[in-house]
């Protein structure tokens, strides 16, 4: 049977007949079907070192023995070459915004994230790659690429072995980093010469 592809099939066009019991009922038009996976997460050795340092307000990265690149948070291997990292590198809690996004739509079950808010790719001083963080204590519209930021830590008596110890990143007021090569945003820095 030939069908006209431009004519929606009856089953999608709303032309259905209902049993009398539903004649006056407000039709359901959507259904929530969550997919949920509940894990117990064990971070492994490199991330455990990083998380234990976090409890003391220190940020630990790890250096690739081949290229010298510094990765944070550390995964125990260079994500580029696959070489095992062995040397811990303590990094300052300052860096700059390499890229950012302003979110204006709320996320279900995240009442702590009040739109509009700014998530950013933050590169710490001395790190070869960035990671995701929230930019706080500034209107999202004023955030810019290259803006210098510093970690805002939880109060000392609330610190845990968790990256959530960093509440967000606030502007330092220093002059912006000058970014000239926008092609490289989001990529690892080349190995130090």
């Amino acid at each position, binding site marked *: 049977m030939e069908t006209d592809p431009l004519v929606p*099939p*009856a*089953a*999608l*066009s*709303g*032309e*259905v*007949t*209902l*049993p*009398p*019991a*539903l004649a006056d*009922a*407000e*039709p*359901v*038009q*959507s*259904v*929530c*079907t*969550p*997919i*949920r*996976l*509940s*894990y*117990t*997460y*064990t*971070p492994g050795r490199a991330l*455990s070192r990083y*998380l*234990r340092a976090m409890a003391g307000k220190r940020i630990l990265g790890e250096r690739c023995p081949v290229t010298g690149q510094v990765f944070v948070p550390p995964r125990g291997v260079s994500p580029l070459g696959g070489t095992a990292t062995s040397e811990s590198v303590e990094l300052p809690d300052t860096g700059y915004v390499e890229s950012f996004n302003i979110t204006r739509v709320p996320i*279900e*079950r995240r009442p702590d994230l009040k739109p509009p808010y700014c998530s950013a790719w933050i590169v710490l001083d001395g790190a070869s790659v960035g990671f995701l963080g929230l930019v706080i204590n500034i209107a999202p519209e004023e955030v810019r690429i290259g803006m210098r930021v510093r970690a805002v830590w939880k109060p000392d008596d609330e610190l845990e*072995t*968790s990256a959530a110890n960093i509440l967000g990143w606030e502007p330092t007021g220093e002059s912006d980093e000058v970014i000239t090569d926008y092609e490289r945003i989001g990529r690892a820095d080349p190995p130090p010469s």
Partner: protein
Amino acid sequence: MVTEVLQAPLVLEYPFTRSTGPVIGAFLTGLREGVICGVRRADGTVLCPPLEYDPLTADPLTELVEVQQSGEVLTWAWNGEPRPMQPFDRAFAWALIRLDGADTSMLHAVFADSPSGMSTGMRVRAVWRDEREGHIADIAGFEPETQRPSE
């Protein structure tokens, strides 16, 4: 040096909301109203839960009809250790249930005390939740008809 291994709960969740279309929407509307709907094929047989298209001819299906709230267990499997968010917090059976007035079966939970309370061909009836929103879980599950004879 012995160091405590770090671990933490991690939940990965996608809270999808999908649109239903008029056929599945009517089925869910029915559940909210305490009515179970099927859809009639051209040969007069009734599919429940309803499908939007005929599984043999691919024709659109549009005639929704009410089916009964009792039916027959076609096959079942005992779930001895329910996981979180399953229909019941103690052991129950998953079953394919063909409701009276339907020619196909739907998967749902049957509340029985033990596997010996389950059998192929047994009669069951729907147990509704008090608060319903248009979701398959508006039917809490099915109970053996012998536990509560029809009024």
